[in-house]
Protein backbone atom coordinates (compact mmCIF):
# COMPACT_ATOMS: atom_id res chain seq x y z
CA UNK A 1 0.00 0.00 0.00
CA UNK A 2 2.68 2.44 1.00
CA UNK A 3 4.79 1.52 -1.96
CA UNK A 4 1.90 2.20 -4.31
CA UNK A 5 1.32 5.67 -2.95
CA UNK A 6 5.04 6.40 -3.36
CA UNK A 7 4.89 5.49 -7.05
CA UNK A 8 1.83 7.69 -7.48
CA UNK A 9 3.62 10.49 -5.72
CA UNK A 10 6.65 10.27 -7.99
CA UNK A 11 4.45 10.04 -11.07
CA UNK A 12 2.44 13.11 -10.03
CA UNK A 13 5.50 15.19 -9.31
CA UNK A 14 7.16 14.25 -12.60
CA UNK A 15 3.93 15.08 -14.42
CA UNK A 16 3.58 18.49 -12.82
CA UNK A 17 7.25 19.34 -13.28
CA UNK A 18 6.86 18.70 -17.02
CA UNK A 19 3.58 20.60 -17.31
CA UNK A 20 4.97 23.53 -15.35
CA UNK A 21 8.10 23.60 -17.49
CA UNK A 22 5.99 23.73 -20.67
CA UNK A 23 3.79 26.40 -19.14
CA UNK A 24 6.69 28.64 -18.22
CA UNK A 25 8.59 28.03 -21.44
CA UNK A 26 7.04 30.90 -23.45
CA UNK A 27 7.89 33.38 -20.71
CA UNK A 28 11.41 32.03 -20.40
CA UNK A 29 11.74 32.40 -24.15
CA UNK A 30 10.65 36.02 -23.87
CA UNK A 31 13.05 36.70 -21.00
CA UNK A 32 16.05 35.14 -22.78
CA UNK A 33 15.25 36.91 -26.02
CA UNK A 34 15.07 40.28 -24.32
CA UNK A 35 18.83 39.99 -23.84
CA UNK A 36 19.46 39.62 -27.56
CA UNK A 37 19.53 42.41 -30.12
CA UNK A 38 16.25 42.85 -31.97
CA UNK A 39 17.93 42.44 -35.36
CA UNK A 40 18.92 38.93 -34.30
CA UNK A 41 15.32 38.01 -33.62
CA UNK A 42 14.20 39.38 -36.93
CA UNK A 43 16.78 37.35 -38.80
CA UNK A 44 16.72 34.06 -36.87
CA UNK A 45 13.37 34.05 -35.13
CA UNK A 46 12.45 33.68 -31.48
CA UNK A 47 14.36 30.77 -29.91
CA UNK A 48 16.65 29.79 -27.09
CA UNK A 49 19.88 30.05 -29.09
CA UNK A 50 21.67 32.72 -27.22
CA UNK A 51 25.30 33.56 -27.26
CA UNK A 52 25.87 34.51 -23.63
CA UNK A 53 29.05 36.37 -24.58
CA UNK A 54 27.00 38.94 -26.51
CA UNK A 55 23.97 38.93 -24.23
CA UNK A 56 23.36 42.37 -22.81
CA UNK A 57 20.87 44.66 -21.22
CA UNK A 58 21.08 46.99 -24.21
CA UNK A 59 17.44 46.46 -25.08
CA UNK A 60 16.42 47.61 -21.63
CA UNK A 61 18.77 50.56 -21.86
CA UNK A 62 17.05 51.53 -25.08
CA UNK A 63 13.69 51.11 -23.39
CA UNK A 64 14.65 53.43 -20.54
CA UNK A 65 16.45 55.96 -22.74
CA UNK A 66 13.25 57.90 -23.31
CA UNK A 67 13.76 57.90 -27.07
CA UNK A 68 10.46 56.10 -27.51
CA UNK A 69 6.92 56.31 -26.21
CA UNK A 70 7.11 53.22 -24.01
CA UNK A 71 6.99 55.02 -20.69
CA UNK A 72 4.27 57.36 -21.88
CA UNK A 73 2.15 54.24 -22.51
CA UNK A 74 3.26 52.79 -19.21
CA UNK A 75 2.19 55.94 -17.42
CA UNK A 76 -1.16 56.01 -19.26
CA UNK A 77 -1.86 52.42 -18.30
CA UNK A 78 -0.82 52.98 -14.71
CA UNK A 79 -2.97 56.09 -14.35
CA UNK A 80 -6.02 54.46 -15.93
CA UNK A 81 -5.59 51.36 -13.79
CA UNK A 82 -5.30 53.30 -10.55
CA UNK A 83 -8.24 55.59 -11.28
CA UNK A 84 -10.42 52.78 -12.56
CA UNK A 85 -9.67 50.49 -9.63
CA UNK A 86 -10.38 53.22 -7.08
CA UNK A 87 -13.64 54.32 -8.69
CA UNK A 88 -14.90 50.86 -9.59
CA UNK A 89 -14.20 49.52 -6.10
CA UNK A 90 -15.91 52.39 -4.34
CA UNK A 91 -18.94 52.67 -6.60
CA UNK A 92 -19.46 48.91 -6.95
CA UNK A 93 -19.20 48.55 -3.17
CA UNK A 94 -21.94 51.20 -2.78
CA UNK A 95 -24.18 49.41 -5.26
CA UNK A 96 -23.48 45.97 -3.81
CA UNK A 97 -24.22 47.32 -0.34
CA UNK A 98 -27.51 48.80 -1.54
CA UNK A 99 -28.57 45.46 -2.94
CA UNK A 100 -27.43 43.42 0.04
CA UNK A 101 -28.79 45.48 2.91
CA UNK A 102 -32.03 47.09 1.81
CA UNK A 103 -35.45 46.08 0.62
CA UNK A 104 -36.86 48.56 -1.87
CA UNK A 105 -39.20 48.75 -4.82
CA UNK A 106 -37.61 47.74 -8.09
CA UNK A 107 -34.84 45.80 -6.37
CA UNK A 108 -35.36 42.60 -8.31
CA UNK A 109 -35.63 44.41 -11.61
CA UNK A 110 -32.45 46.43 -11.04
CA UNK A 111 -30.55 43.36 -9.91
CA UNK A 112 -31.71 41.54 -13.03
CA UNK A 113 -30.08 44.41 -14.95
CA UNK A 114 -26.80 43.76 -13.12
CA UNK A 115 -26.97 40.13 -14.19
CA UNK A 116 -27.84 41.15 -17.75
CA UNK A 117 -24.76 43.38 -18.05
CA UNK A 118 -22.67 40.61 -16.51
CA UNK A 119 -23.69 38.04 -19.10
CA UNK A 120 -23.56 40.15 -22.25
CA UNK A 121 -19.96 40.27 -23.53
CA UNK A 122 -18.79 43.87 -23.95
CA UNK A 123 -17.86 43.05 -27.55
CA UNK A 124 -21.59 43.03 -28.40
CA UNK A 125 -22.01 46.77 -27.86
CA UNK A 126 -18.60 47.83 -29.14
CA UNK A 127 -19.99 49.88 -32.02
CA UNK A 128 -22.82 51.82 -30.32
CA UNK A 129 -20.61 52.45 -27.29
CA UNK A 130 -17.89 53.82 -29.53
CA UNK A 131 -20.39 56.13 -31.22
CA UNK A 132 -21.58 57.35 -27.85
CA UNK A 133 -18.05 58.03 -26.62
CA UNK A 134 -17.33 59.88 -29.87
CA UNK A 135 -20.36 62.10 -29.33
CA UNK A 136 -19.23 62.77 -25.76
CA UNK A 137 -15.87 63.95 -27.22
CA UNK A 138 -13.99 61.43 -25.13
CA UNK A 139 -11.95 59.80 -27.90
CA UNK A 140 -8.26 59.81 -26.93
CA UNK A 141 -9.27 60.63 -23.40
CA UNK A 142 -8.75 58.31 -20.48
CA UNK A 143 -12.31 58.96 -19.31
CA UNK A 144 -13.55 57.44 -22.55
CA UNK A 145 -11.88 54.21 -21.47
CA UNK A 146 -13.02 54.41 -17.85
CA UNK A 147 -16.56 55.83 -17.85
CA UNK A 148 -18.51 52.93 -19.41
CA UNK A 149 -17.01 50.55 -16.86
CA UNK A 150 -17.35 52.68 -13.73
CA UNK A 151 -19.63 50.20 -12.02
CA UNK A 152 -18.48 46.64 -12.65
CA UNK A 153 -21.33 44.08 -12.39
CA UNK A 154 -18.92 41.36 -11.36
CA UNK A 155 -17.78 43.46 -8.39
CA UNK A 156 -21.35 44.41 -7.48
CA UNK A 157 -22.27 40.76 -7.45
CA UNK A 158 -19.28 39.85 -5.34
CA UNK A 159 -19.79 42.63 -2.77
CA UNK A 160 -23.48 41.80 -2.47
CA UNK A 161 -22.56 38.19 -1.83
CA UNK A 162 -19.92 39.16 0.69
CA UNK A 163 -22.20 41.51 2.61
CA UNK A 164 -25.17 39.19 2.68
CA UNK A 165 -23.35 37.25 5.38
CA UNK A 166 -23.54 40.24 7.73
CA UNK A 167 -26.69 40.22 9.91
CA UNK A 168 -29.04 43.13 9.34
CA UNK A 169 -29.54 43.60 13.11
CA UNK A 170 -26.13 45.14 12.98
CA UNK A 171 -27.59 48.02 10.97
CA UNK A 172 -30.53 48.50 13.29
CA UNK A 173 -28.24 48.63 16.29
CA UNK A 174 -26.18 51.32 14.58
CA UNK A 175 -29.34 53.24 13.68
CA UNK A 176 -30.50 53.16 17.29
CA UNK A 177 -27.16 54.64 18.24
CA UNK A 178 -27.90 57.53 15.90
CA UNK A 179 -25.75 56.57 12.96
CA UNK A 180 -27.06 57.78 9.57
CA UNK A 181 -27.52 55.43 6.63
CA UNK A 182 -24.34 56.71 5.01
CA UNK A 183 -22.50 56.75 8.30
CA UNK A 184 -23.21 53.03 8.61
CA UNK A 185 -21.74 52.43 5.19
CA UNK A 186 -18.62 54.52 5.64
CA UNK A 187 -17.87 53.83 9.28
CA UNK A 188 -19.01 50.26 9.75
CA UNK A 189 -19.28 48.50 6.41
CA UNK A 190 -16.21 49.75 4.58
CA UNK A 191 -13.89 48.56 7.37
CA UNK A 192 -15.72 45.21 7.34
CA UNK A 193 -15.25 44.92 3.58
CA UNK A 194 -11.49 45.49 3.64
CA UNK A 195 -10.48 41.87 2.92
CA UNK A 196 -12.76 41.75 -0.10
CA UNK A 197 -11.33 45.06 -1.37
CA UNK A 198 -7.90 43.48 -1.71
CA UNK A 199 -9.10 40.58 -3.85
CA UNK A 200 -11.46 42.72 -5.89
CA UNK A 201 -8.86 45.42 -6.35
CA UNK A 202 -6.55 42.86 -7.87
CA UNK A 203 -9.32 41.48 -10.06
CA UNK A 204 -10.11 44.95 -11.38
CA UNK A 205 -6.47 45.99 -11.54
CA UNK A 206 -5.56 43.00 -13.69
CA UNK A 207 -8.43 43.55 -16.06
CA UNK A 208 -7.69 47.28 -16.40
CA UNK A 209 -3.95 46.81 -16.83
CA UNK A 210 -4.35 44.06 -19.41
CA UNK A 211 -7.41 45.43 -21.20
CA UNK A 212 -6.78 45.64 -24.91
CA UNK A 213 -9.80 45.85 -27.18
CA UNK A 214 -11.71 48.79 -25.69
CA UNK A 215 -8.65 51.03 -25.19
CA UNK A 216 -7.59 50.22 -28.75
CA UNK A 217 -10.94 51.46 -30.03
CA UNK A 218 -11.13 54.58 -27.88
CA UNK A 219 -7.56 55.79 -28.36
CA UNK A 220 -5.50 56.21 -31.48
CA UNK A 221 -3.06 59.00 -30.72
CA UNK A 222 0.44 57.63 -30.11
CA UNK A 223 0.73 59.48 -26.80
CA UNK A 224 -2.71 58.51 -25.51
CA UNK A 225 -2.70 54.76 -26.05
CA UNK A 226 -2.20 52.29 -23.22
CA UNK A 227 0.65 49.82 -22.83
CA UNK A 228 -1.02 46.76 -24.42
CA UNK A 229 -2.18 48.85 -27.39
CA UNK A 230 1.28 50.38 -27.71
CA UNK A 231 3.02 47.00 -27.63
CA UNK A 232 0.64 45.70 -30.27
CA UNK A 233 1.49 48.67 -32.50
CA UNK A 234 5.17 47.66 -32.36
CA UNK A 235 4.40 44.31 -33.94
CA UNK A 236 5.22 45.42 -37.47
CA UNK A 237 6.06 42.95 -40.22
CA UNK A 238 9.46 44.57 -40.70
CA UNK A 239 10.68 43.73 -37.25
CA UNK A 240 12.34 47.10 -36.80
CA UNK A 241 10.74 47.54 -33.37
CA UNK A 242 11.61 44.17 -31.94
CA UNK A 243 14.10 45.67 -29.51
CA UNK A 244 11.43 47.56 -27.66
CA UNK A 245 8.72 44.98 -28.24
CA UNK A 246 10.46 42.10 -26.48
CA UNK A 247 12.09 44.03 -23.65
CA UNK A 248 8.89 46.06 -23.30
CA UNK A 249 6.73 42.95 -23.06
CA UNK A 250 9.01 41.62 -20.33
CA UNK A 251 8.95 44.85 -18.45
CA UNK A 252 5.14 44.87 -18.61
CA UNK A 253 4.95 41.55 -16.77
CA UNK A 254 7.77 41.96 -14.25
CA UNK A 255 5.91 44.31 -11.86
CA UNK A 256 2.89 42.02 -11.94
CA UNK A 257 5.03 38.98 -11.17
CA UNK A 258 6.54 40.79 -8.20
CA UNK A 259 3.09 41.77 -6.93
CA UNK A 260 1.90 38.21 -7.51
CA UNK A 261 4.76 36.77 -5.49
CA UNK A 262 3.92 39.12 -2.62
CA UNK A 263 0.12 38.92 -2.64
CA UNK A 264 -0.52 35.51 -4.16
CA UNK A 265 -3.52 34.70 -2.01
CA UNK A 266 -5.36 37.86 -3.03
CA UNK A 267 -4.49 37.38 -6.69
CA UNK A 268 -5.91 33.89 -6.76
CA UNK A 269 -8.93 34.90 -4.70
CA UNK A 270 -9.62 37.91 -6.86
CA UNK A 271 -9.06 36.38 -10.25
CA UNK A 272 -11.23 33.38 -9.52
CA UNK A 273 -13.91 35.34 -7.70
CA UNK A 274 -16.44 34.50 -10.38
CA UNK A 275 -16.54 30.95 -9.15
CA UNK A 276 -17.75 31.95 -5.70
CA UNK A 277 -21.08 30.29 -5.31
CA UNK A 278 -24.21 32.16 -4.36
Amino acid at each position, binding site marked *: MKKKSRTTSVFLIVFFVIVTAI*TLLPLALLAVSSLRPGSDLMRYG*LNFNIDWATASLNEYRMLFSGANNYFIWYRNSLLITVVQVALALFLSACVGYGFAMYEFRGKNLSFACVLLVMMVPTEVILLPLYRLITRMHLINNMWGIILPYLVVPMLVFFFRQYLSGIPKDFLDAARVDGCTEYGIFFRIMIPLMKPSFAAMGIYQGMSSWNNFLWPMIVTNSITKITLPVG*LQSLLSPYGNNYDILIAGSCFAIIPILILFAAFQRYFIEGMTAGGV*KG
Partner: protein
Amino acid sequence: MKKKGILKKVLYSQKVAPYVFIAPFIITFVVFFAYSIFSMVMMSFQKVAGPNTVFVGLDNYKVIHNSIFIKSLKNSIFYTIVSCALMIPIPLVMAVMLNSKSMKAKSFFRSLLFIPALTSVVVAGVVFRMMFGELEGSFMNQVIASFGQGPLIWLRTPGTVWMVLFFVCLWRWTGVNMMYYLSGLQQIPSDLYESASIDGASTWQAFWNITVPLLKPTIIYVLTISIFGGMAMFSESYMIFNGNKSPNNIGTTLVGFLYRMAFEQNNLGIGSAVGVIFLSIVLVVNFLQLFANGTFGRKEK
Protein backbone atom coordinates in the same frame (compact mmCIF):
# COMPACT_ATOMS: atom_id res chain seq x y z
CA MET B 1 -32.08 76.94 5.15
CA LYS B 2 -35.27 75.08 5.87
CA LYS B 3 -35.43 73.66 2.36
CA LYS B 4 -31.96 72.26 2.80
CA GLY B 5 -33.11 70.58 5.98
CA ILE B 6 -35.96 68.82 4.19
CA LEU B 7 -33.73 67.69 1.37
CA LYS B 8 -31.26 66.34 3.86
CA LYS B 9 -34.01 64.53 5.71
CA VAL B 10 -35.29 62.92 2.53
CA LEU B 11 -31.81 61.92 1.36
CA TYR B 12 -30.99 60.42 4.73
CA SER B 13 -34.25 58.50 5.12
CA GLN B 14 -34.14 54.74 5.08
CA LYS B 15 -36.49 54.70 2.08
CA VAL B 16 -34.35 56.86 -0.17
CA ALA B 17 -30.89 55.67 0.88
CA PRO B 18 -30.94 52.41 -1.13
CA TYR B 19 -31.66 54.37 -4.30
CA VAL B 20 -28.72 56.64 -3.58
CA PHE B 21 -26.51 53.58 -3.15
CA ILE B 22 -27.55 51.91 -6.39
CA ALA B 23 -27.72 55.17 -8.37
CA PRO B 24 -24.21 54.78 -9.87
CA PHE B 25 -25.25 51.50 -11.41
CA ILE B 26 -28.61 52.74 -12.67
CA ILE B 27 -27.00 55.79 -14.28
CA THR B 28 -24.19 53.89 -16.04
CA PHE B 29 -26.64 51.15 -17.01
CA VAL B 30 -29.05 53.55 -18.66
CA VAL B 31 -26.45 55.78 -20.30
CA PHE B 32 -23.97 53.19 -21.53
CA PHE B 33 -25.71 49.84 -21.70
CA ALA B 34 -29.42 50.33 -22.32
CA TYR B 35 -28.85 53.28 -24.62
CA SER B 36 -26.19 51.36 -26.57
CA ILE B 37 -28.47 48.39 -27.08
CA PHE B 38 -31.31 50.70 -28.12
CA SER B 39 -29.23 52.65 -30.62
CA MET B 40 -27.69 49.45 -31.98
CA VAL B 41 -31.12 47.96 -32.66
CA MET B 42 -32.22 51.23 -34.29
CA MET B 43 -29.10 51.47 -36.46
CA SER B 44 -29.50 47.88 -37.58
CA PHE B 45 -32.64 48.92 -39.49
CA GLN B 46 -30.99 51.97 -41.01
CA LYS B 47 -28.51 52.93 -43.63
CA VAL B 48 -26.29 55.48 -41.94
CA ALA B 49 -24.33 57.73 -44.28
CA GLY B 50 -23.13 60.93 -42.67
CA PRO B 51 -26.09 63.00 -41.55
CA ASN B 52 -28.55 61.17 -43.81
CA THR B 53 -30.13 58.19 -42.18
CA VAL B 54 -32.58 56.09 -44.13
CA PHE B 55 -34.82 53.37 -42.80
CA VAL B 56 -34.07 50.22 -44.81
CA GLY B 57 -36.03 47.59 -42.90
CA LEU B 58 -34.34 44.23 -42.71
CA ASP B 59 -31.83 44.97 -45.50
CA ASN B 60 -28.84 44.93 -43.14
CA TYR B 61 -29.81 41.50 -41.91
CA LYS B 62 -29.18 40.11 -45.39
CA VAL B 63 -25.63 39.88 -44.06
CA ILE B 64 -26.56 36.38 -42.88
CA HIS B 65 -26.16 35.29 -46.52
CA ASN B 66 -22.69 36.85 -46.72
CA SER B 67 -20.17 34.04 -47.09
CA ILE B 68 -17.56 35.74 -44.91
CA PHE B 69 -20.14 36.28 -42.17
CA ILE B 70 -21.07 32.60 -42.32
CA LYS B 71 -17.42 31.63 -42.23
CA SER B 72 -16.68 33.84 -39.23
CA LEU B 73 -19.73 32.55 -37.37
CA LYS B 74 -18.63 28.98 -38.09
CA ASN B 75 -15.12 29.83 -36.91
CA SER B 76 -16.46 31.24 -33.63
CA ILE B 77 -18.69 28.23 -33.03
CA PHE B 78 -15.85 25.85 -33.86
CA TYR B 79 -13.49 27.70 -31.54
CA THR B 80 -16.10 27.68 -28.77
CA ILE B 81 -16.83 23.96 -29.04
CA VAL B 82 -13.20 22.87 -29.17
CA SER B 83 -12.10 25.25 -26.43
CA CYS B 84 -14.89 23.94 -24.18
CA ALA B 85 -13.86 20.39 -24.98
CA LEU B 86 -10.30 21.28 -23.91
CA MET B 87 -10.84 23.74 -21.10
CA ILE B 88 -13.33 21.71 -19.07
CA PRO B 89 -11.79 18.22 -18.78
CA ILE B 90 -8.06 19.04 -18.84
CA PRO B 91 -8.01 21.48 -15.90
CA LEU B 92 -10.44 19.18 -14.04
CA VAL B 93 -8.14 16.19 -14.29
CA MET B 94 -5.15 18.35 -13.38
CA ALA B 95 -6.97 19.76 -10.35
CA VAL B 96 -7.85 16.26 -9.13
CA MET B 97 -4.25 15.16 -9.60
CA LEU B 98 -2.92 18.21 -7.81
CA ASN B 99 -5.40 17.72 -4.99
CA SER B 100 -4.32 14.11 -4.51
CA LYS B 101 -2.96 13.15 -1.11
CA SER B 102 0.21 11.77 -2.66
CA MET B 103 1.03 15.10 -4.28
CA LYS B 104 3.79 17.22 -2.78
CA ALA B 105 4.37 20.99 -3.00
CA LYS B 106 0.80 21.62 -4.15
CA SER B 107 0.75 25.37 -3.68
CA PHE B 108 4.10 25.76 -5.40
CA PHE B 109 2.85 24.16 -8.62
CA ARG B 110 -0.51 25.84 -8.31
CA SER B 111 1.10 29.26 -8.24
CA LEU B 112 3.46 28.57 -11.12
CA LEU B 113 0.64 27.24 -13.30
CA PHE B 114 -1.34 30.38 -12.55
CA ILE B 115 1.34 32.74 -13.92
CA PRO B 116 0.17 32.78 -17.59
CA ALA B 117 -3.16 34.23 -16.45
CA LEU B 118 -1.25 37.34 -15.34
CA THR B 119 -0.09 38.15 -18.86
CA SER B 120 -2.16 40.26 -21.18
CA VAL B 121 -3.47 38.90 -24.42
CA VAL B 122 -0.95 41.18 -26.12
CA VAL B 123 2.12 39.72 -24.44
CA ALA B 124 0.78 36.19 -24.95
CA GLY B 125 0.07 37.03 -28.57
CA VAL B 126 3.56 38.46 -29.16
CA VAL B 127 5.28 35.38 -27.73
CA PHE B 128 3.10 32.82 -29.48
CA ARG B 129 3.14 34.67 -32.78
CA MET B 130 6.93 34.68 -32.75
CA MET B 131 7.32 31.17 -31.33
CA PHE B 132 5.25 29.91 -34.24
CA GLY B 133 6.97 32.19 -36.74
CA GLU B 134 7.68 30.90 -40.23
CA LEU B 135 11.44 31.37 -39.97
CA GLU B 136 13.46 28.20 -39.81
CA GLY B 137 14.91 29.32 -36.50
CA SER B 138 11.57 29.99 -34.82
CA PHE B 139 11.23 27.95 -31.68
CA MET B 140 8.47 25.60 -32.86
CA ASN B 141 10.17 25.01 -36.17
CA GLN B 142 13.32 24.05 -34.26
CA VAL B 143 11.23 21.66 -32.17
CA ILE B 144 9.73 19.89 -35.17
CA ALA B 145 13.10 19.93 -36.93
CA SER B 146 14.46 17.81 -34.08
CA PHE B 147 11.84 15.23 -35.10
CA GLY B 148 13.02 15.51 -38.69
CA GLN B 149 10.10 17.60 -39.93
CA GLY B 150 10.55 20.53 -42.26
CA PRO B 151 9.75 24.08 -41.21
CA LEU B 152 6.04 24.92 -41.26
CA ILE B 153 4.28 28.14 -42.08
CA TRP B 154 2.17 27.84 -38.96
CA LEU B 155 0.05 30.92 -39.26
CA ARG B 156 -1.05 30.51 -42.87
CA THR B 157 -2.46 26.98 -42.82
CA PRO B 158 -5.92 26.46 -41.31
CA GLY B 159 -5.03 23.36 -39.28
CA THR B 160 -1.99 24.85 -37.58
CA VAL B 161 -3.61 28.27 -37.11
CA TRP B 162 -6.33 26.75 -34.97
CA MET B 163 -3.77 24.70 -33.11
CA VAL B 164 -1.89 27.87 -32.19
CA LEU B 165 -5.10 29.59 -31.06
CA PHE B 166 -6.02 26.62 -28.86
CA PHE B 167 -2.48 26.59 -27.45
CA VAL B 168 -2.85 30.23 -26.44
CA CYS B 169 -6.21 29.49 -24.86
CA LEU B 170 -4.93 26.45 -22.97
CA TRP B 171 -1.82 28.27 -21.90
CA ARG B 172 -3.61 31.28 -20.47
CA TRP B 173 -6.65 29.66 -18.86
CA THR B 174 -5.68 26.19 -17.61
CA GLY B 175 -4.32 27.60 -14.35
CA VAL B 176 -7.42 29.69 -13.73
CA ASN B 177 -9.90 26.91 -14.47
CA MET B 178 -7.84 24.56 -12.35
CA MET B 179 -8.20 27.00 -9.48
CA TYR B 180 -11.99 27.01 -9.85
CA TYR B 181 -12.00 23.23 -9.67
CA LEU B 182 -9.61 23.18 -6.73
CA SER B 183 -11.87 25.42 -4.68
CA GLY B 184 -14.80 23.18 -5.65
CA LEU B 185 -12.86 20.07 -4.64
CA GLN B 186 -12.11 21.50 -1.23
CA GLN B 187 -15.83 21.55 -0.50
CA ILE B 188 -16.25 17.81 -1.07
CA PRO B 189 -16.07 16.04 2.31
CA SER B 190 -13.15 13.60 2.35
CA ASP B 191 -15.12 10.90 4.22
CA LEU B 192 -17.03 10.32 0.97
CA TYR B 193 -13.81 9.09 -0.60
CA GLU B 194 -12.87 7.11 2.47
CA SER B 195 -16.12 5.21 2.54
CA ALA B 196 -15.88 4.67 -1.22
CA SER B 197 -12.43 3.14 -0.87
CA ILE B 198 -13.66 0.91 1.98
CA ASP B 199 -16.41 -0.27 -0.37
CA GLY B 200 -13.68 -1.15 -2.83
CA ALA B 201 -14.23 1.62 -5.38
CA SER B 202 -11.30 2.35 -7.66
CA THR B 203 -9.85 5.85 -8.03
CA TRP B 204 -11.53 6.05 -11.42
CA GLN B 205 -14.94 5.06 -10.03
CA ALA B 206 -14.58 7.57 -7.23
CA PHE B 207 -13.77 10.25 -9.80
CA TRP B 208 -16.85 9.52 -11.92
CA ASN B 209 -19.30 8.86 -9.12
CA ILE B 210 -18.23 11.36 -6.48
CA THR B 211 -16.00 14.09 -7.91
CA VAL B 212 -17.78 14.82 -11.18
CA PRO B 213 -21.37 14.93 -9.83
CA LEU B 214 -20.39 17.04 -6.83
CA LEU B 215 -18.41 19.45 -8.99
CA LYS B 216 -21.35 19.96 -11.33
CA PRO B 217 -21.92 23.61 -10.30
CA THR B 218 -18.25 24.44 -10.94
CA ILE B 219 -18.28 22.56 -14.24
CA ILE B 220 -21.35 24.51 -15.33
CA TYR B 221 -19.69 27.76 -14.35
CA VAL B 222 -16.53 26.92 -16.31
CA LEU B 223 -18.68 25.87 -19.25
CA THR B 224 -20.53 29.19 -19.16
CA ILE B 225 -17.42 31.36 -19.11
CA SER B 226 -15.85 29.17 -21.80
CA ILE B 227 -18.87 29.57 -24.08
CA PHE B 228 -18.99 33.35 -23.74
CA GLY B 229 -15.23 33.69 -23.92
CA GLY B 230 -15.21 31.51 -27.01
CA MET B 231 -18.01 33.31 -28.84
CA ALA B 232 -16.48 36.70 -28.04
CA MET B 233 -12.96 35.66 -29.08
CA PHE B 234 -11.23 38.34 -31.10
CA SER B 235 -8.11 39.73 -29.45
CA GLU B 236 -6.24 36.42 -29.64
CA SER B 237 -6.83 36.21 -33.37
CA TYR B 238 -5.98 39.91 -33.75
CA MET B 239 -2.63 39.37 -32.04
CA ILE B 240 -1.73 36.14 -33.81
CA PHE B 241 -2.38 37.67 -37.23
CA ASN B 242 -1.15 41.14 -36.25
CA GLY B 243 -4.42 42.79 -37.17
CA ASN B 244 -7.95 41.87 -38.05
CA LYS B 245 -6.83 40.07 -41.16
CA SER B 246 -6.06 36.46 -41.81
CA PRO B 247 -5.27 34.76 -45.10
CA ASN B 248 -8.57 33.67 -46.62
CA ASN B 249 -10.32 34.59 -43.35
CA ILE B 250 -9.18 31.37 -41.70
CA GLY B 251 -9.02 33.09 -38.36
CA THR B 252 -11.83 35.65 -38.66
CA THR B 253 -14.31 35.36 -35.80
CA LEU B 254 -17.79 36.80 -35.28
CA VAL B 255 -16.39 39.78 -33.36
CA GLY B 256 -13.70 40.11 -36.02
CA PHE B 257 -16.39 40.42 -38.67
CA LEU B 258 -18.28 42.94 -36.54
CA TYR B 259 -15.07 44.92 -36.10
CA ARG B 260 -14.41 44.85 -39.84
CA MET B 261 -17.88 46.07 -40.71
CA ALA B 262 -18.14 48.66 -37.96
CA PHE B 263 -14.65 50.08 -37.71
CA GLU B 264 -12.79 49.19 -40.90
CA GLN B 265 -15.54 49.58 -43.49
CA ASN B 266 -17.53 52.06 -41.44
CA ASN B 267 -20.75 50.27 -42.33
CA LEU B 268 -22.72 51.11 -39.22
CA GLY B 269 -25.94 49.43 -40.35
CA ILE B 270 -24.43 46.03 -41.00
CA GLY B 271 -22.11 46.36 -38.01
CA SER B 272 -25.16 46.91 -35.82
CA ALA B 273 -27.07 44.05 -37.41
CA VAL B 274 -24.16 41.72 -36.63
CA GLY B 275 -24.19 43.08 -33.06
CA VAL B 276 -27.90 42.35 -32.73
CA ILE B 277 -27.41 38.81 -34.09
CA PHE B 278 -24.55 38.32 -31.62
CA LEU B 279 -26.72 39.61 -28.77
CA SER B 280 -29.52 37.21 -29.72
CA ILE B 281 -27.10 34.28 -29.71
CA VAL B 282 -25.85 35.31 -26.26
CA LEU B 283 -29.39 35.59 -24.89
CA VAL B 284 -30.46 32.25 -26.36
CA VAL B 285 -27.40 30.50 -24.92
CA ASN B 286 -28.07 32.09 -21.55
CA PHE B 287 -31.67 31.05 -21.62
CA LEU B 288 -30.76 27.46 -22.50
CA GLN B 289 -28.15 27.43 -19.79
CA LEU B 290 -30.54 28.73 -17.12
CA PHE B 291 -33.08 26.20 -18.28
CA ALA B 292 -30.64 23.29 -18.14
CA ASN B 293 -29.52 24.50 -14.74
CA GLY B 294 -33.06 24.24 -13.45
CA THR B 295 -33.08 27.88 -12.33
CA PHE B 296 -36.67 28.37 -13.46
CA GLY B 297 -37.90 25.36 -11.56
CA ARG B 298 -36.04 26.34 -8.42
CA LYS B 299 -37.47 29.84 -8.31
CA GLU B 300 -41.00 28.49 -7.76
CA LYS B 301 -40.07 27.22 -4.32
